[in-house]
């Protein structure tokens, strides 16, 4: 890994935020805040219905903030990859000494930067609007968030491999796949609330264990080590699989000579 080349890719994308693109800023600030406010108002309403001892605001807003991590991680890594495809710069990038590992390390750094900024904004808005702080979860926030970040990257690398192989006609996946995973990940409800035939699918997703663990921590104040380790194990397994998948797709694309066509 060459840090200079990683920095080159990081800076190449950070330049785009130099006050020249409102939609990019909306992506970081506006849309996540809108989502938070929608769920915030809904949880305030549910809270007024007196549904027992459950802290609705903590459960729902915690889920919203945590899901933003998965979504940001996936979309950042996918979109930073797509930027060079859209700009027909893909070939220029891959005829330099840059390695695939360095490219994905750079997009991971960019995703972390984006997540930190968005999370800071969301937590501030949540605190002042609903007196909600995710830190009521204690130190568990960090390992839970880490797992969600890794799974977002896993999905992104998988989608990027498909785009690499089938071109921009597959780019809709970069924005759609995550929406399929959300209901399966038991984000806002326990996995047992899902139909029984869907539950096995839900249980092979690391996100399911993180959200189950988050609810357990909120309810009992203890860190759910088993769920955390299951999520981590699945993430490590999927990460290895998608890296192998991407590398195989890259080899196929080179063998078929269609790398230049990816951007056309």
């Amino acid at each position, binding site marked *: 890994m060459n840090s200079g*080349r990683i920095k080159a890719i990081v800076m190449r994308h950070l*330049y785009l935020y130099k006050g020249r693109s409102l939609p990019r800023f909306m992506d970081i600030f506006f849309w996540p805040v809108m989502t938070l406010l929608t769920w915030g108002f809904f949880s305030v309403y549910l809270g007024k219905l007196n549904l027992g001892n459950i802290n609705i605001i903590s459960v729902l807003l915690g889920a919203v903030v945590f899901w933003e991590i998965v979504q940001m991680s996936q979309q950042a890594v996918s979109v930073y990859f797509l930027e060079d495809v859209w700009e027909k*710069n893909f070939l220029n*990038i891959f*005829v330099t000494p840059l390695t695939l590992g360095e490219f994905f390390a750079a997009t991971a750094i960019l995703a972390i930067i984006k997540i930190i900024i968005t999370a800071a904004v969301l937590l501030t808005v949540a605190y002042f609007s609903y007196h909600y702080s995710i830190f009521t979860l204690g130190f568990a926030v960090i390992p839970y968030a880490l797992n969600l970040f890794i799974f977002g990257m896993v999905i992104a690398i998988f989608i990027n491999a498909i785009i690499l192989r089938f071109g921009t006609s597959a780019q809709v996946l970069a924005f759609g796949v995550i929406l399929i995973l959300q209901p399966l990940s038991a984000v806002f409800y326990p996995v047992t609330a899902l139909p029984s035939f869907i539950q096995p699918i839900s249980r092979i997703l690391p996100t399911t264990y993180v959200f189950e663990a988050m609810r357990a921590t909120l309810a009992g104040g203890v860190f759910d080590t088993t769920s955390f380790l299951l999520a981590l194990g699945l993430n490590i397994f999927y990460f290895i699989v998608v890296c192998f998948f991407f590398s195989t797709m890259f080899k196929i694309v080179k063998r078929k000579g269609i790398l230049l066509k990816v951007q056309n």
Partner: protein
Amino acid sequence: MNVIEVKNLTKDFGDFRAVNDLSFSIEEGKITALLGPNGAGKTTTIQMLLDIITPTSGSISFFGKDLHTNKEEILSKVNFSSPYVALPSNLTVMENLLTFARLYGVKKPKQKIEELADFFEIRNLLPRMTTSLSTGQLTRVNLTKAFVNDPKVLLLDEATASLDPYIADKTLTVLERMQKERKVTILYTSHNMAEIERLCDRVIFINKGTLRDDGTPQELMSKFGHKDLNDVFISIATEEE
């Protein structure tokens, strides 16, 4: 000394053989043209030289080292320019050049870019958005990018395509000057034969993926009994029709 050695290079796309047992070497500090009609296998050969297409068989080495096993080291000494590959339009020229300077590990990148910008007469373009450039300006920016790492080998794929004669002439003059001063080895593809006669020390003709002829422009013109390379090109392109 040979900087590039291509041996028995073959590329099949399914049943179609795009490059067939191609062997050639490129001498250090020379400008060599890789010519052939559309579909001859030039772009496939160049893309194999850049390791973005994997050959079916054969070997490619740069500086005596195998490309496949020494990719990072070799690509740091090579650069490429083609009008069919764009620089990000939503960055300024300076930002684009800085990105590539960093990717190639250039020390003092700003200083290097400013020095090259003077040479290619694009200093006034550095703060401008790349999207606002004309085709001629873009070609000079692409060439600046191609020289940013002081390459030992430069692959130029139709560098003057879509340029008007004045800008094309200006670009060639700059290339000639750059090559003379820096002794860069250049592999050049073009469909403009006058440009090849002016610029290139040697010409490699390929057709249907196979090497057809190899020599200086003068040698080829006398061999085929033509006054210019354009007629030589037509003779070779039509020889099997």
